[in-house]
C-alpha cells in the first residue's frame, strides 16, 4: 500500500476542547514550533490511520477569521496558503450557535470541512439533542460527535477525515445568503475579482468580496500591493460599503455578522431540539463565590500563595537531588585527571559546562511545578476569573487584566513569566508586560536578600509595643518586593506614554465553564513549556555560563602572595583533624580569592570601580555583579569567592560577617536595590529576545533596567550618605 501523507488543520474557538482533541489524535508525537515571522505557537503532530499518515496542524484558537488578532491572521493564512487536505473545526456542542460562527467562515472559504461536535456529552446533559447528520446537510460539511476528555469519537473523526480527503461523500458547502441588498453588492464585486486572475486563483472570489465589504485590513493591503486594477476594485468596494451603510444605518460587517448568526440559528432550529431548559448553573454557582465582592480577592490571594507554596515546597527535594547529582558528576569527571594536576579541559568541563548545565537544570523542578500549577488554574477555568478580578487595577496602570498572570509568575522566575505573556492579544500589551516583568523579585533575588538582610538588618527592632515587636528584618524583605512592584507599575506607565504609546486594548474575554482538567492534558501542558525553557534558554545560558566562567578563571595566576603549597603541606601535619580541615579550607579559599582578583572578571571589577564608587560599591561587588548576570543568585557565590569563605549555606554566616566589617547598612541596601532593578539574568534576556522576536527589545530591557538601577542606587546612596542614614 502506498504511503501518502495528508495534512489536516485543526481549528476551533478557545475553550472548545481543541487541545484535548489534538492530544487524542497525535498522542506523544507532537512538535512545538513557531509560525514563520510571528511568535504564535505552531503545534504539529502525526498519526497513522488505516495506513495513511496524517499530519495534524493545531491552528491557534480563534473566534473568527478577521484580522483582529495575529492568531486569526495566522489561522486564516495557513488555511488559504497551505491548503490543507481537510480542515477540522472543533465545535463546542454545548454552545453550538456561537461556535458555529467560525464554521461559517470556513464554509465561505469553500475548504474541505469536517466539524467535530465536541463535548457532545455536556450538550446532552444540558438538554440539547443534536441531529448531527441533519446539521451536516444544512451546513454542507461532515459532522462527527466527539467527547474529547474521554477520547470518544476519535476513530470516527479520522474516518470522516479520510473520506473527505479521498473524495467520498463530500457535501457541497452551504450557500449563506446575506439578504438581497448585500448579495447584490457581492454580485457586483465578484466579476471584478474574477477579472483579476492573480486574486481569483488565490482566494475564493465570493469570500474575497465578503472580506472587501467587511473592509478587511489585511486583504485591502494585499490588493493595494497587488498593483494593476487594485485601486478600481477597492473603489468599487468603498462605494458598496457606502451604499450599504446608507441602507442599513450600520457598518456592513455588523450586518454580515448578523446574517451569519441568522443562518446558524436557522440551521439549529432544524437540527437541534431542546429537551430541558438547564443552563450551566454549576459554573454560575461557582462564579457567585469566586467573583464575589468580598471573597473574590482574598480567595485569589490565597490561591496565589498556595501556588507558590506548592511550587517551592514540592520542588525543594528534586532541586537538591539535581544539585547533588551534578556535584557527583563534577567530582567523577575531575577524578579522571590525576589529583593536583593543572588541566584547562577539566576546568572547562567541571566548572564551565557541568556547572552551567547544572545551573540551568536546578531551576527545572521549580519551573515545571509552577507551570503545572498554572496549567491547573488555566484548565479549570480559574485563570480567566483571576484576569477578570484584576482587570480594573491593571487597567489603571496601563496594563491588561491578563498581564497580571505573567507578573505573578515573575515572583517565581522571570523566564516563564516572559513566556506567559503569550496570553495577551495585543503586541503593545505584551511588550509592556514583558519589559517590566523582571522587576518582580524572583526567587533568585530572594537568595541575595537573605544574605544582605541577614548581615545588616537582622536584629534591629523598629517598634516595641508590649510583647509585640516590629522587627526590621521582615520589613526589609517586604520593602524590596514593594519597591519592585511600584517600579514595575511606574515603568509600565512610562512605557505606555513613550515607546509603547496607545490605548490599552479593552478586556474582551470569554469566561469558560469550569471543568475538571485531565492529568494527561496537564502533563502535556507542563512539559511543553518546560521543554521550551530547557531547550531555548538552556543553550544560551550554557554559552554565557561558559563565557562567565572563563572571565572568572582567566588569565590564570601563577605567582601568589604566599606559598600555598607549603601552607597546605604545613596544614596536613596538624594533629587535630578539625583544625587541619579548617586550615586547608582557609588556604584554598584565600588562593581562590587571589585568582579571582587576577582574572578578567576581577580586573573588570577593578576597572569599573570608579563608576561604581558613587553607588557605594567597590571592585569586589563589581566582580560579583558580573557573575550575577549569569544567574542572580551567583552574586552570593561570587562574593563568597571574593571573601574566600566558600559558598554554601554553612559559609553564609562567615560571609555576612565579612560584609558587616567592610560595608555600611546603606551599601547593603544599595546592593539589594541594584540587584533587584539592574540587568535581568541572561535567561530572561534570552526569553525576551525570543518572545519579542528581536534583539532590540531584549537589549532595550537590559539597558533600560540597568540605567534605571544605576540612577536609583546613585540617588539612594548619595541621599542616604547626605542624611546620614545607615552609614
Amino acid at each position, binding site marked *: 500500500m502506498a504511503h501518502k501523507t495528508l495534512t489536516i488543520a485543526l481549528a476551533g474557538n478557545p475553550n472548545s476542547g481543541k487541545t484535548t482533541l489534538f492530544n487524542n489524535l497525535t498522542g506523544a508525537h507532537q512538535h512545538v514550533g513557531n509560525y514563520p515571522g510571528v511568535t504564535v505557537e505552531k503545534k504539529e503532530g502525526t498519526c497513522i490511520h488505516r495506513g495513511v499518515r496524517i499530519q495534524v496542524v493545531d491552528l491557534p484558537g480563534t*473566534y*473568527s477569521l*478577521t*484580522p*483582529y*488578532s495575529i492568531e486569526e491572521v495566522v489561522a486564516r493564512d495557513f488555511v488559504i496558503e497551505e491548503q490543507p487536505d481537510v480542515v477540522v473545526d472543533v465545535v463546542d456542542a*454545548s*454552545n453550538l*450557535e*456561537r461556535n458555529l*460562527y*467560525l464554521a461559517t467562515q470556513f464554509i465561505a472559504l469553500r475548504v474541505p470541512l469536517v466539524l467535530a461536535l465536541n463535548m457532545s456529552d455536556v450538550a446532552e446533559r444540558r438538554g440539547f439533542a443534536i441531529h448531527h447528520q441533519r446539521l451536516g446537510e444544512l451546513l454542507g460539511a461532515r459532522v462527527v460527535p466527539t467527547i474529547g476528555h474521554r477520547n470518544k469519537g476519535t476513530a470516527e473523526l479520522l474516518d470522516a477525515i479520510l473520506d473527505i480527503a479521498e473524495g467520498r461523500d463530500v457535501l457541497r458547502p452551504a450557500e449563506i445568503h446575506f439578504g438581497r441588498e448585500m448579495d447584490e453588492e457581492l454580485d457586483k464585486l465578484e466579476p471584478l475579482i474574477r477579472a483579476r486572475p492573480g486574486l481569483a486563483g488565490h482566494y475564493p472570489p465570493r469570500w474575497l468580496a465578503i472580506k472587501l465589504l*467587511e*473592509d478587511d*485590513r489585511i486583504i485591502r493591503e494585499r490588493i493595494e500591493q497587488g498593483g494593476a486594477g487594485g485601486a478600481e476594485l477597492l473603489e468599487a468596494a468603498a462605494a458598496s460599503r457606502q451604499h450599504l451603510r446608507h441602507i442599513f444605518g*450600520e*457598518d456592513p*460587517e*455588523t450586518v454580515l*455578522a*448578523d446574517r451569519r*448568526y441568522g443562518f446558524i440559528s436557522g440551521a439549529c432550529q432544524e437540527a437541534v431540539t431542546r429537551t430541558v431548559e438547564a*443552563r*450551566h448553573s454549576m*459554573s*454560575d454557582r461557582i*462564579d457567585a463565590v469566586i*467573583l464575589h*465582592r468580598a471573597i473574590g480577592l482574598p480567595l485569589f490571594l490565597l490561591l496565589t500563595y498556595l501556588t507558590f507554596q506548592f511550587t517551592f515546597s514540592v520542588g525543594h527535594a528534586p532541586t537538591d537531588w539535581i544539585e547533588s547529582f551534578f556535584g557527583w558528576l563534577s567530582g567523577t569527571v575531575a577524578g579522571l585527571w590525576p589529583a593536583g594536576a593543572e588541566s584547562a579541559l577539566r576546568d572547562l568541563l567541571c566548572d564551565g559546562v557541568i556547572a552551567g548545565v547544572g545551573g540551568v537544570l536546578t531551576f527545572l523542578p521549580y519551573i515545571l511545578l509552577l507551570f503545572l500549577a498554572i496549567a491547573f488554574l488555566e484548565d479549570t477555568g480559574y485563570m*480567566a476569573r483571576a*484576569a*477578570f478580578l484584576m*482587570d*480594573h487595577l491593571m*487597567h489603571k496602570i496601563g496594563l491588561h*487584566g491578563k498581564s497580571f498572570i505573567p507578573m505573578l509568575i515573575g515572583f517565581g522566575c522571570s523566564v516563564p513569566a516572559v513566556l506567559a505573556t503569550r496570553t495577551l492579544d495585543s503586541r503593545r500589551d505584551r511588550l509592556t508586560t514583558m519589559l517590566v516583568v523582571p522587576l518582580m523579585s524572583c526567587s533568585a533575588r530572594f537568595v541575595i536578600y537573605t544574605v544582605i538582610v541577614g548581615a545588616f538588618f537582622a536584629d534591629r527592632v523598629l517598634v516595641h509595643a508590649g510583647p509585640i515587636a516590629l522587627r526590621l528584618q521582615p520589613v526589609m524583605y517586604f520593602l524590596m518586593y514593594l519597591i519592585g512592584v511600584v517600579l514595575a507599575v511606574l515603568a509600565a506607565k512610562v512605557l505606555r506614554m513613550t515607546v509603547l504609546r496607545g490605548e490599552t486594548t*479593552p*478586556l*474582551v*474575554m*470569554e*469566561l469558560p465553564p469550569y471543568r475538571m482538567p485531565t492529568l494527561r492534558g496537564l502533563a502535556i501542558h507542563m512539559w511543553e513549556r518546560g521543554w521550551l525553557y530547557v531547550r531555548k534558554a538552556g543553550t544560551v545560558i550554557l554559552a554565557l555560563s561558559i563565557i562567565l566562567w572563563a572571565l572568572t578563571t582567566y588569565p590564570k595566576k601563577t605567582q601568589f602572595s604566599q606559598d600555598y603549597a607549603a601552607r597546605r603541606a604545613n596544614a596536613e601535619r596538624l594533629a587535630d583533624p578539625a583544625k587541619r580541615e579548617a586550615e586547608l579550607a582557609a588556604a584554598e579559599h584565600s588562593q581562590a580569592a587571589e585568582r579571582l582578583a587576577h582574572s578578567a572578571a576581577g580586573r573588570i571589577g577593578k576597572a569599573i570601580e570608579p563608576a561604581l564608587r558613587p553607588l557605594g560599591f567597590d571592585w569586589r561587588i563589581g566582580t560579583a555583579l558580573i557573575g550575577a548576570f549569569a544567574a542572580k543568585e551567583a552574586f552570593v557565590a561570587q562574593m563568597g569567592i571574593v571573601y574566600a569563605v566558600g559558598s554554601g549555606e554553612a559559609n553564609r554566616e562567615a560571609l555576612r560577617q565579612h560584609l558587616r566589617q567592610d560595608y555600611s547598612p546603606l551599601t547593603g541596601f544599595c546592593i539589594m536595590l541594584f540587584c533587584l532593578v539592574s540587568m535581568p539574568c541572561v535567561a530572561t534576556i534570552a526569553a525576551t529576545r525570543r518572545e519579542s522576536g528581536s534583539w532590540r527589545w531584549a537589549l532595550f530591557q537590559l539597558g533600560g533596567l540597568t540605567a534605571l538601577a544605576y540612577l536609583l542606587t546613585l540617588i539612594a546612596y548619595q541621599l542616604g550618605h547626605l542624611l546620614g542614614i545607615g552609614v
Partner: protein
Amino acid sequence: MALERGAGKSDAGGTLALGSVPEGQRVRLVKLDAGCGMASRLSAMGLVPGVEVRMLRNRGRGPALVEVKGTRLALGRGMTTKILVQPPA
C-alpha cells in the same frame, strides 16, 4: 456617529450604554460603537444587534460580566460604554 461615551444616559431612542444596565437585567443589543476591528471581534463572540444580553455582574467600575448566546463574556469598562442596548419591550 457621535454616540455618548460617558455614563450612558438614555438618549431619545431609549437606548442606554451596556455599562449602566443593573445586574440581573436582560436587554437587547442595539448598536456597537467600537472600532471596526473590535466590532468584528465582538460579533464573532456573539454580540450582534438584536441579541439578548443578560447582565451577570456590574459593579459600576471594573469589567462587567454578561451572558450572551450561552457564554459568559467579560467586557472591560471602556467597552461597556460603547455597546448600546435597549430594555426588551
